[in-house]
């Protein structure tokens, strides 16, 4: 709850396309580099 909205990626079940999960995965991968 202390995070600003821009610092969070969101996905909605049965609402968001698969691409949004791909974006999340890419963000996680890049953070690990």
């Amino acid at each position, binding site marked *: 709850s202390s995070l600003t909205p821009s610092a969070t990626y969101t*996905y909605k*079940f*049965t609402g968001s*396309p*698969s691409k949004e*999960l791909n974006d*999340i*995965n890419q963000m*996680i*991968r890049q*953070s*690990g580099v």
Partner: protein
Amino acid sequence: AQECRELETERLRRLERIKQKQAQLQELILQQIAFKNLVQRNRQLEEKNNRPPPPNTIIHLPFIIVNTSKNTIIDCSISNDKFEYLFNFDNLFEIHDDVEVLKRMGLAFGLESGRCTQEQLKIARSFVPKALQPYVTEMAQGAIN
């Protein structure tokens, strides 16, 4: 000349939009093929075994999978009513939806990567409406991006 430039910009914008919509359509086609293939597989297996699989060994669609290394430590907090979960990982993770799982199981016949046998292509085409069958053939030939 000004009109020409504006029309060219408009043309490129439409081309880009069409490219995106074609990709979305291909993704929907893969989803339909994978789903129908799954239903067919499970129906045949249940008929062969004369019973459904035990309920505690299966997961119904839709679902998502969070995968991480087997060495990752996962800390999980759950609200009393199970309406909220918080997971903390000490390592990277990935999230995939059920369509991705079905593709990894081979239920999209490898169409997503342009690897598909003639026999599989025949079955895949039968899973989509006739008007969309040319897209399936294109995908099998590796035209998918």
